[in-house]
């Protein structure tokens, strides 16, 4: 089907604001020492993503986008954060550990990543490609911030949060480039993601079981 898009959407303040909230919540997760706060940040990240998709669905009147948006909200804003939060409360992951970068240095790196993303997205994707212009740089920036969380944190759960933020950012790229992928595909992707997070939780538990905490930098027994 061919979806016609009203002129105002690319410059829509609602979408711009939501994209801003999306990026800001990713940065908030990167700035947090406490894992539970980072889980909450992820929840808001997913909420912003779902709302952007809902706005697109509302404007275009496409029912499959609305359904996909609701599924995103159900899995990413409710199920996965709940799973992660339960994991954190049950294990010893909630205690603070020193990140590899201090928070101020980490924030500086994240700021640099955002600048890179906003200045280079146009060069990467070329001018005038994005349907939702403000979302694509925010998505690239959040991808980089999510990857930074993964490499700069020691706790296993924080690395999972980095991963799911990257996943959210790619969903945002899908929404802003093509209004999201076909519904069946999105459903499968969300199902895989949900099972994946449950599996990550199981491994976090086992890491805590075998070494007493969930510091992944201490997982170095296998070499050669």
């Amino acid at each position, binding site marked *: 089907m061919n979806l016609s898009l009203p002129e105002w959407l690319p410059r829509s303040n609602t979408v711009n604001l939501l994209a801003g909230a999306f990026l800001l919540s990713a940065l908030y997760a990167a700035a947090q020492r406490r894992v539970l706060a980072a889980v909450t940040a992820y929840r808001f990240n997913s909420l912003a993503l779902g709302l952007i998709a809902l706005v697109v669905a509302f404007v275009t009147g496409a029912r499959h986008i609305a359904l996909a948006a609701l599924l995103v909200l159900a899995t990413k804003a409710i199920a996965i954060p709940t799973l992660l939060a339960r994991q954190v409360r049950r294990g010893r992951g909630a205690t603070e550990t020193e990140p590899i970068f201090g928070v101020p240095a980490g924030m500086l790196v994240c700021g640099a990543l955002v600048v890179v993303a906003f200045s280079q997205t146009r060069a990467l994707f070329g001018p005038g490609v994005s349907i939702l212009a403000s979302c694509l740089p925010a998505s690239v920036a959040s991808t980089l911030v999510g990857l930074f969380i993964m490499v700069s944190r020691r706790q296993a759960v924080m690395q999972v949060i980095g991963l799911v933020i990257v996943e959210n950012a790619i969903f945002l*790229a899908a929404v802003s480039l093509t209004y999201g*992928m076909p519904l069946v*595909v999105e459903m*499968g992707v969300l199902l895989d993601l949900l099972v*994946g997070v449950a599996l990550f939780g199981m*491994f976090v538990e*086992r890491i805590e*079981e075998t070494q007493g905490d969930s510091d992944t930098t201490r997982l170095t027994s296998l070499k050669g």
Partner: protein
Amino acid sequence: MLPLLLVSPLAAIACLALRGSRWTARVMLGAAALVLVQALMLAGRVLRGGPIEGAAGWLQADALSALVACIVSGMALACAAYGQYYMAEVATNERADARWAPGRYEALVLVLVGAMLLATLANNLGLLWIAIEASTLASALLVGYYRRPGAVEAGWKYLLLCSVGITLALLATVLLYYSAVHVYGEGPAGLRWTSLVAAAPRLDPRFVRLAFLFAFVGYGAKAGLAPMHSWLPDAYTQAPTPVAALMSTGLLATAFSALLRFHAVTAACVGPAWPNGLFMVFGALSMLVAIPFMLVQGEFKRLLAYSSIEHTGFLALAIGLGTPLATFGAMLHLVMQSLAKSLAFMVGGTLGRANDSRRMDHWSGVLAASPAVGVLFVGAGIGVAGLPPAGTFVSEWLALTGGFAGAHHTVALVALLAFVAVFTGLAFHWSRMALGRPRPRFADHLPAASRVPLWALLGLLVLFGLWLPGPVRALVEQAAKVVRP
């Protein structure tokens, strides 16, 4: 195609229902045999009638998918036939390690097999992604099968690295979908591989290039290409031996064929030179990275894991060489390395149990200790090293001949030198283990029946090395045509 896809998930459910009884291993064996028969029948249909589409365009079987489906299901059968003895032996002798009720292991292996088959037969790139991610999840659980710290570490690394990789592959899928939106509009058609290949010249080349880069990183990590390979030695070493054999053959072939699907679209859109270059560079890098680790390796499964990286590298390099003969050699190598590698893993599993150690310096005099295992062990070594009369020799030789006939002599020379270096390392390790005086504590606990699948693998490996039956040859030829029309 649907019955082929449904057998293993249904058998997995049956295994969960029968959890705790003795029937689960037999259910898995029966299901694997049924899957293999159906895969062979599918290959026959494709050979006679060309590509088949199914399920409203979501599935398709061309020669490449039929070939990979045959590899996956053949390896699943070998894994089930050997695994029933091996896992029973592990369960009786290692109380602390294996705490799983029988049934869950079989169910997970069957889920893994089902996911791999879905990935090979998927026509929709989104479905391909879902299936590959599902195979990662199932195999990560299997890598963590033993609850020792090393297995947890390996499972965690594997899950995390391949999840990041697969997330980038999702981005690749989105980008390719976007590049086709102006051709097909919104809807599943824009993700259909057959439509994408047909419309490739009209796709936006900028996005196709980006998509290929991300897919290369994502699915390349899964296939074990350097520098995204760091999870692989740990995962193969820690996974139970039959699972390691399945991962180094079926899963490798599946991930590599996913890479080939993206390669076909990219080559048709921006010309073959650019994707071929990437394949050659990272293929050669993988081969070279693996060599030092193979020369000074203490653990047998780790040695085979680095050998897998080397073989994936060679596959990529041969595809990158670009001549028809090299492509044919690469497709043939996909079959041959599966036969050789699964044989090596399984005979290594037997020896590991018999010597009660996984370290190679604790193994010696295998030929004298048990002539039957010794012959299989030497055969596996010849296969992994690529010497005649093993089939791997033929496939490597064909691919390299194709390379020297083409434009990239230096790359083919690099591969040839890498093979020589690998051969010296393998000859050193193998001669030390196969010859000499057997260890006094050597005791092969596995029954002779567990060697039947190994003899079958060795027989096929040597048979294909001496004479390639017509249908096999035709299937490999047509698969090469799918990769490079």
